[in-house]
């Protein structure tokens, strides 16, 4: 990923910044220009909480070039407590422990690195809630 493209997404990747519709309150992540619920065009920045639960998952064994060396790894769709869904790698969990409804927390992790000399990309991954 070109550094500039990743950089534009830092508010979402680093701080989970969503857009909350000022008219109907619907939270959009990533932010949108028009509210899909009421067509309103004005939003306020809303920082998502970091907890949610797994609603779907799969194990990737043959990843795209950016993620070779990480395989096998799990990817899942997480329903956040703030009622938005996002896709994230699911880490620090045995594949046999994956299940729909697993409580997870988004942690700050390395997503990928451009070889040994390129930029390192950071963002969120889901890890099971400890305890």
């Amino acid at each position, binding site marked *: 990923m070109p550094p500039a493209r990743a950089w534009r997404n830092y508010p979402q990747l*680093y701080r989970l910044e969503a857009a909350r519709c000022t008219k109907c309150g619907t939270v959009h992540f990533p932010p949108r220009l028009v509210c899909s619920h009421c067509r309103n065009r004005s939003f306020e920045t809303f920082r998502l909480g970091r907890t949610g639960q797994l609603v779907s998952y799969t194990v990737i064994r043959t990843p795209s070039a950016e993620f070779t060396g990480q395989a096998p790894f799990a990817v899942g769709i997480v329903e956040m407590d703030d009622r938005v869904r996002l896709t994230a790698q699911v880490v*620090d969990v045995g594949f046999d422990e994956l299940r729909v409804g697993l409580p997870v927390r988004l*942690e700050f992790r*390395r997503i990928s690195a451009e070889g040994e000399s390129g930029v*390192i990309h950071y963002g969120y991954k889901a890890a099971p809630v*400890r305890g």
Partner: protein
Amino acid sequence: MAAGIIGYGAHIPRRRIKVEEIAKVWGADAPSYKKGLELREKSVPGLDEDTITLSVEAARNALARAQIDPAEIGAVYVGSESHPYAVKPSGTTVAEALGATPDCHCADLEFACKAGSEGMFVAYGLVKAGLIKYGLGIGADTSQGAPGDALEYSAAAGAAAFLMGDDDDKLIASIDETYSFMTDTPDFWRREHQFYPSHGGRFTGEPAYFRTVTGAVRGILGKSGMKPADFKYAIFHQPNGKFPKRVGKMLGFTMEQIDTGRLVPTLGNTYSGSSPLGLTAVLDVAEPGDRVLMCSYGSGAGSDAFVFTVRPRVRETRDLAPRTRWLLDEHVRYIEYGEYAKLRRKIRMAE
């Protein structure tokens, strides 16, 4: 006006490897390593964990306890000897992830294992001087020992973060005194482009660690007019289980004072995170009025010592983020040497 810690947080990766598992691969005698180092296992970071990610998680826990607006953090200092980039600061990513940018001073610090306490010292100093409202000092490392080297049994990963401020109603522990001690002592080093550090073997003990830590502690006791018995807890840099016990004894501290913050037997040496993580474990259980001594150590060589007095707010804040002993003891995953070698990038891959 008093200044000191208004928020603290720890983070420790979940994976652990036991001394036996490493010794098995190198044909070494595990019981003698365990006895010699007083260490049973150590934390291991995942491929996606580094000094930056551990720092962010620890700092988020510190923010959860401080309950301040991250935009009011005026300085971010990450101390480490394993910054992910040779050129490009760790602190900018940490500050961006917390929401402390752009109105913020930032620098990465390096001084072997002392870099974490340096960040604490500088952040505290700037608050005390009135230049910033809040300052963040972090000690974090994901250090490596060469395969088969004694350091491989202890080099571990972890981070501790401290938010400094001077709002009287926010203080968790005031800093009452500081003292630093340092000389040029070549006990441990790593040259540019070298993957693993080098050390002076037995030379790392007497003239380096023990001389420097006792120098710093005697200095701060003299400066503050206090004696070992005045403290409820004492935390010393812990490269292994033995050194902090021995240095404590040399200085007149009891095991009771030392053990709460001595995490190394099941954590390993977290380098810049070492004594700072010990301090987080102490704050998790300390009571208002307790006096706490912390003394870091970094090869090269130097120590930063602090005297803290715990404030009543410690009780309200300790359960706003995970406690350090809980991170250390619960939900750990033991791995074998093969996975460890992969995670620590000790396996040579095709280009």
